[in-house]
């Protein structure tokens, strides 16, 4: 009986090491004194200072956050509308077509999405004169487009399993369908909206392929910036930036876990 337990514990630690050792080494090397990433030369926080002084990199961070924020907003809004159409309007004509069209970006390679959006923007500029040049706006449109697909999957699966009688009860008590949706359905599916938003935000923040197709002069997002700077040799500044991002993500995850655990405990207490 003892051997399998020891074996599974061993496998657990191998798995954890596989997942987290790279990040750990990245964090350790962000405190490296040396300007060569692979050579250890003692502790230092100088690359954090360098990072905050590097205006190009910092403005790319803010630009990326901005794009991710607005892309996530647009994706959730469109995702809610698409989900309502898919789950609540019964079997209307073209329902299955809408379903596959909305889900298509999930399986489409990023290169193809990026290229097709680039071609679209170019020909739109030729025909209607908009967008005049590619930049943040076109990145936002592109990100909103493919994030909507993910947001719709998350939101519509929640909406599908939601008991219809909540909406009906609200209408029965005198709320118009729109009011009932806003006052009852939306608050109930709020956790799904939040996860759809976070997912879209992350995807947008992470994307380098689509963004590099549709970006223009002066609209370099963080992944593009990092990607191009790595080609000239990795600077320990990137390590510092990555460490900060890992820290923020961990804190957010921890907070979500803590909140949901507290809620679960309160429910148990009530019973």
């Amino acid at each position, binding site marked *: 009986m003892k051997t399998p337990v020891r074996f599974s514990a061993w496998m657990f630690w191998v798995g954890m090491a596989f997942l987290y050792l790279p990040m750990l080494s990245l964090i350790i090397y962000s405190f490296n004194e040396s300007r060569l990433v692979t050579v250890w030369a003692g502790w230092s926080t100088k690359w954090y200072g360098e990072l905050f002084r590097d205006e190009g990199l910092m403005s790319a961070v803010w630009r990326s956050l901005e794009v991710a924020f607005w892309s996530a907003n647009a994706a959730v809004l469109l995702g809610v509308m698409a989900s309502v159409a898919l789950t609540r309007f019964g079997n209307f004509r073209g329902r299955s077509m809408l379903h596959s069209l909305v889900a298509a970006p999930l399986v489409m390679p990023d290169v193809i999405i990026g290229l097709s959006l680039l071609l679209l923007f170019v020909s739109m500029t030729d025909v209607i004169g908009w967008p005049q040049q590619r930049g943040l706006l076109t990145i936002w449109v592109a990100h909103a487009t493919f994030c909507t697909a993910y947001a719709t999957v998350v939101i519509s699966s929640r909406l599908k399993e939601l008991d219809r009688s909540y909406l009906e009860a609200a209408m029965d008590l*005198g709320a118009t369908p729109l009011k009932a949706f806003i006052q009852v359905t939306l608050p109930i599916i709020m956790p799904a909206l939040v996860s759809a938003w976070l997912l879209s935000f992350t995807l947008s923040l992470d994307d380098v392929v689509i963004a590099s197709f549709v970006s223009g002069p002066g609209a370099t997002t963080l992944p593009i910036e990092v990607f191009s700077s790595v080609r000239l040799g990795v600077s320990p500044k990137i390590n510092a930036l990555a460490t900060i991002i890992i820290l923020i993500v961990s804190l957010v995850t921890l907070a979500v876990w803590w909140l949901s655990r507290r809620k679960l405990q309160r429910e148990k207490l009530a019973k």
Partner: protein
Amino acid sequence: MIEPSITRDSADGHFLQIKSIVKTYDDVVAVNDVSLDIAKGDIFALLGASGSGKSTLLRMLAGFETPNSGQIILDGEDIVSLEPYRRPINMMFQSYALFPHMTVEQNIAYGLKQDRMPKKMIADKVVQMLRLVHMEKFAKRKPEQLSGGQRQRVALARSLAKSPKLLLLDEPMGALDKKLRTRMQLEVVDILESVGVTCVMVTHDQEEAMTMANRIAIMEEGRIVQAGTPRDIYEAPNSLQAAEFIGSMNLFHGEICVDAEDHAVIDSQECANKLYVSYGVTTALDDKQVVFAVRPEKTMISREQPDSEYNWCRGMVHDIAYLGGHSIYHIRLDNGKILNSFMVNSDRFADAPTWEEQVYVYWSDDSGLVLRP
């Protein structure tokens, strides 16, 4: 407690009239030409198996489904074309559908807020409703922090808060366990009677319908089989369907051989003796096939042969289900047919017939019924 404002008789006419309602889904007829009259203050139960159309009818009353044809007239007004949120009707859902993100108080106040009632009045009404369902202590709780019975009370309070003209209950006890069910049935009826609201409920449980309702309609395949008081439906079913739906019945297929003004005699292959009913059965000459029916609790068991000419048969005790208050005997007749008979256990250790004993089952002349096959 609030004074009962309405006496429960069906005298004051047609408060809710359902007139030849038809509802089809594609090719399936869910509700087929149903007409019902429901009086003010009635607690009316639609009783039927799943798929009988009872829920569809209820949803049409609430406004969630639109009938293909027919009228629904509530207090003199045709409401068929009215949206659900404009109808003076409230519903208690089977799942209760309490809004999980609102407290008990907010749930009850939700309907009143939609009417833009002043805040003070809403607060007063909420307190009044909480008192009505004995939930004052739980006003600040969320639905997830309540037990099944408490949730039901909140759901009831929420649907009564707007003082609807008509209250709809969809399988009101469906989400409760058996023990709680019996208690809540009486409690809900008490609350409904103290408010005096007219109520239509849907249930598949005949015991629930008979406990709670003062009138029942049995539905089958989208039609009303019979409507009447629980006693009417139990003691005078108008058809084989109605008789078999409620309670259990011993049935003998046979032919009418004497058809007098005040009695009839039926000759059945399934019973050694002739069967007698103490009321006249008008039959056409060429249609003598009938079914004689007698309820198990109206039959008696004895070891001695009855001296009557009619209404008894001989058999063996095949099985006994001892239920405490009474026992159900399964008697196998000589021809193999099984009869059910109830025996009340009034003596603690009476010398009752036991397995494989020969007994006689008999019943009085006015116990039987004649139904059309």
